[in-house]
Structures are given as structure tokens and as C-alpha cells.
């Protein structure tokens, strides 16, 4: 890596050595801790809130928190994509779907607490197994290098051009399928009042 020397009137700074002068480590650790609390709290609300509209909004908290972790991992491009596609598009559709199906989902019956406890036990056991695995492995501690956005873009139009184009074909298929599914009216809704005849 070449050293970049920036000359500012009165003094000379070596830009490449600046990050090591700043206390980056504790700041990123604190930021990661805050983001982790945000993500886990949001995820807890997503699965636990009885009101589905609020659960969908909590998913927004989780998605923004994950985007923040992407920025900490030097994946800025992915962070922007996450905000644009997930928060901007997917979450909007989900909120609309929640509102469109609100009239048929009003009586939300809670799951019995015994089943809830069994599910919590199962997922806790799964987390324990995963955490044990992570703990047991000696992870390499080299200096990581995040790929730049330019490198990702280059890969997307050279090596990965086929999956990239396939995704566009898939999008077209999905759009047609979604329109077909959502506009198909085979039956009248069960609870809807029937139109008077004659």
C-alpha cells in the first residue's frame, strides 16, 4: 500500500498512518455492542409482538442494525443495498401486505405457552450448539481485507455476469407471478357480503 502524503499548510500528514493514530478499536467495539443490542432487541420484537404491524416495523430496526454492522465490516456497498432493497422495498411491501390482510387477521389467537416454551427451548438449544461450535474453533487472526466496491462491481460484470443476469430474469418472472397471484379472484371471500341479485 502506497503512502499518501497530504500537505496541509504548516504541517505534513501521512494519511495512511492516520487510522492507527485514532482509537478505532474501542469505538468500533462499542458501536458493535450497541448495534448488537439494537438487532437482538428488534429481532425479539419481530417474533414476540402480537401486533404484526409493529413486528414489521421492528424488522426495520433489525435491518438498519445489520446495515450498521455491514459498515463496521467495511462493506459499505452492501449496507446501502440493504437499506435500499430491504428497508426501502421489502419492508414497504410487507407493511402493505399487513394492512391488506388486517381484516382477516384481527382475532390473533396466542400460541399456548407450553408450545411457546418448547419452541424457546429448541431455539435456545440450537443457539447453544452453534455458540459451542464457534467457541471451539481457533479462528485465524490475520489482518482482514474487505473487498472494495469497485472489485465487487468488476466481478458482477465479469465472473458473476451469468447469475447477475439470471437474477434479472428471475425478477421479471417474480413480478409476473406476483401480479397473477394477487389479482386472481377465483372465490369470493368467505366473510364478504354477497351482492344482491336481481
Amino acid at each position: 500500500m502506497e503512502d499518501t502524503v497530504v500537505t496541509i499548510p504548516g504541517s505534513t500528514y501521512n494519511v495512511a498512518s492516520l487510522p492507527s493514530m485514532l482509537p478505532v478499536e474501542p469505538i468500533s467495539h462499542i458501536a458493535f455492542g450497541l448495534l448488537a443490542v439494537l438487532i437482538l432487541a428488534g429481532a425479539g420484537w419481530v417474533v414476540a409482538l402480537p401486533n404484526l404491524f409493529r413486528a414489521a416495523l421492528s424488522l426495520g430496526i433489525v435491518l438498519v442494525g445489520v446495515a450498521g454492522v455491514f459498515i463496521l465490516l467495511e462493506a459499505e456497498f452492501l449496507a446501502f443495498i440493504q437499506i435500499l432493497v430491504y428497508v426501502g422495498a421489502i419492508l414497504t411491501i410487507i407493511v402493505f401486505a399487513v394492512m391488506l390482510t388486517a381484516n382477516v387477521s384481527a382475532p390473533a389467537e396466542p400460541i399456548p405457552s407450553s408450545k411457546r416454551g418448547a419452541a424457546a427451548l429448541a431455539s435456545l438449544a440450537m443457539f447453544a450448539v452453534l455458540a459451542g461450535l464457534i467457541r471451539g474453533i481457533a479462528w485465524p487472526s490475520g489482518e482482514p481485507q474487505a473487498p472494495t466496491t469497485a472489485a465487487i462491481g468488476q466481478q458482477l460484470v465479469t465472473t458473476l455476469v451469468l447469475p447477475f443476469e439470471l437474477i434479472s430474469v428471475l425478477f421479471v418472472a417474480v413480478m409476473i407471478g406476483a401480479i397473477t397471484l394477487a389479482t386472481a379472484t377465483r372465490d369470493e371471500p368467505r366473510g364478504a357480503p354477497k351482492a344482491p341479485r336481481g
Partner: protein
Amino acid sequence: MSVPLPWILYLSSALFSIGVYGMLTRRHAIGLLLSVELILNASVLNFVAFGRLYGNVHAQAFALFIIALAACEAVVGLAIIIGLARSAGTVFVDRLTLLKG
């Protein structure tokens, strides 16, 4: 490394486990979809963390594809749910018995 890799792995496995809990306890079809989004986010987080560890460019591109596929999945899933709400009159997965023989 600014953030140690195991921390991210712990976070993503916690996110994954919460998503699994949601899949097991939610009755509303959109609630299931929200839990699937949590699980997908956990996997994307792992992809990015490992790609950074090994300096792999394909990891982030793959994460991009996962996000695109998640968008497709959400669109088709929500269209199906809206269609179900219209034709079957319910969106609770334990009351949907249209395919029961």
C-alpha cells in the same frame, strides 16, 4: 480486525435462533415471512464476515444475490398470502387446509 469474527458469528447465530423461534411460534403467514427475513439476514451477516476474513470478493456478491432472492421471496410470498386472504378467508397457517385430502 476492528470487530472480532466470533462476535459477529455469535450475533448471527443469535439472530438465526430468534428467527427459528419465530417460525415455530408464529401463526400468521406474514409473521413467518418476517422470521424468514431474520434468518436470511443472519446468513448474509456470516457471508460478509467470512468474506472479509479471507479477503474474498465473491462473498459480498453472493450476499447481494441473497438480498435479491429475499426480495423475490417476499414478493411472491406476500402475493400468495394476499391471494389466500382473498380466497380462503384466513392467513393463519394452522387454519389453511385447502390442500388437505
